[in-house]
């Protein structure tokens, strides 16, 4: 079935100058093998074409069940120079996991991540005096 990476993986991104790196984390060996096969540097470069001008390099860290993508010429000039609101590339991880891949149904059934439960936050906000 077709599924977005957001339902299978964790992520974190950060900047170095005009370069952004995104770590993509699997939660099982099976998902790691799958993303290692299908989430290639080329695929990520295509996905980020509207935001990133430079090359994408991929590194593997099996001990972390992680892939690490380095995106060059990615921030519109880098933190102190870019006009973008996200001047430090903090949201690039979330943008990566928009990517949809093909995954076996049984793997998805076993690996799909649960939705966040933010009930406490809603209740707490509702308890405050608001206009």
């Amino acid at each position, binding site marked *: 079935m077709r599924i977005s990476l957001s339902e299978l993986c964790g*992520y*974190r991104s950060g900047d170095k*100058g005009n370069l952004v790196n995104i770590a993509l984390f699997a939660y099982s060996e099976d998902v790691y093998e799958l993303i290692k096969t299908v989430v290639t540097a080329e695929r990520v470069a295509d996905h980020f074409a509207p935001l990133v001008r430079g090359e994408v390099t991929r590194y593997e860290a099996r*001990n972390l*069940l992680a892939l*690490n993508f380095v995106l060059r010429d990615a921030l519109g000039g880098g933190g102190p*120079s870019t006009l*973008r609101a996200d001047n430090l590339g903090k949201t690039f991880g979330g943008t990566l996991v928009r990517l949809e891949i093909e995954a076996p149904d049984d793997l998805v059934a076993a690996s799909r991540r649960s939705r966040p439960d933010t009930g406490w936050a809603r209740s707490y906000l509702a308890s405050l005096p608001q206009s």
Partner: protein
Amino acid sequence: MSSKVLRIAGGQGFYGDTPSSIAGLLEDGIDYLCLEALAELTLAILQKDRARDESRGYTRDLPVYLKTAMPAVAAGRVKVITNAGGMNPAAAARVATETARDLGITGLRIATVLGDDLFGRLDELHAATASQLKHLDTGAEFHSAQGDPRFFAAYLGARPIVEALDAGADIVITGRVADAALFLAPLIHEFGWAWDDWDRLAAGALVGHLLECSGQTAGGNFSGDWSSIPEPWNLPYPIAEVYADGTAIITKPVKSGGRVDFDTVRHQLLYEVSDPSSYMHPDVLADFTTAQFEDLGEDRVRITGVRGKPATPTYKAVLAHHSGWSGEARAGFAWPYALEKAETTAAIFARRVAEAGYEVAEWRFEYWGVDALGGAVPMPESAGAAEPREVGLRVAWRCDDEKTAASISREMVPLMLSAPPAGHTTMGRSAGGSTELLEIWPTLVEKSFVDPGVTVTIQEV
């Protein structure tokens, strides 16, 4: 394995972090409190501070941290290492001295590390270095850097900090050093690790990398099961318990929220890293892919097996050069046709700016929004899910000229009454002013050009 264990803590992750977390670290019992205050962006801010006032250029929240930590330092329980000196470590040391005097504390040894600042040597190093100051990522020639240079600093390693600790410093203040060096240095000092003991140095650099971003190792900025992090309003900063063989346990203060487990730790391990098998640190190349993790439960993760390779003969250095002036403006638009209204207003605004004769080198148009306008009042069923309830328009621009960048935002204000309907215009963060843009130019400089200029001075308060 020697039974000696050292507890080091990451009490700050950036300039603007909260000093309130270090009280919990001190109470939990730590040997070293390391405060990492400098990002690339921070150096740009501090350079501007120093340009306005020669006595500035350090992170100005340093005294707040020191006021909390100094009584424990004076009692001999903890030592503090920080790069809060930024662009002006000597000024930061003066402030630290004043803070001690204000608290009536005496007998403290405050060390200052200088020598990272290479600004006055740009031409010399351009001619003399193997890199010729080419751009580290793009390989571009140095002369293609547009705009006046504003600062140029090398990322020093752990050596001068170790020298300061060996000389008995209680507080060490540096400028630009590699972030992880703040944490690696006390390990070298305490355990006597050799400068070619690559595996232990790599283990220390890895620990430093895990501690340098404060809450990011304890459940902050965490994409895993983030909504179940305990007491996220009380997120602790991390502690490493390190042994002489390089084994480390990452943990957090007992009395705190947050979480430390394999998932929170691995999230931080790759943060701002390129090749994880070759993490560039001035004192070692660390191979993060060799680390083994054991989740011990109760917010403890053991790390073993880290391998290292010899350090390179160069320091990374970062040059920032002027790259123009920016300004920004914002406006909000409500349904119906919120996006169409925002886009049209953006176009009207840009056209007005052009008609006024302002030169803009680059534009940025962004469209934001959830429920500022109209709140929870229901939408008609006919409005498709794809149609936004509202759109916040953010426009930013880059100009060559400071005054032009500042004047342009004024063109947004009249559009409240003179553009598509129900717009709500506000000035952006620069409130009609302008912000200088600085482009970061990373490069390499041989250590042999830098090290002779590195000094460690210790002053007793």
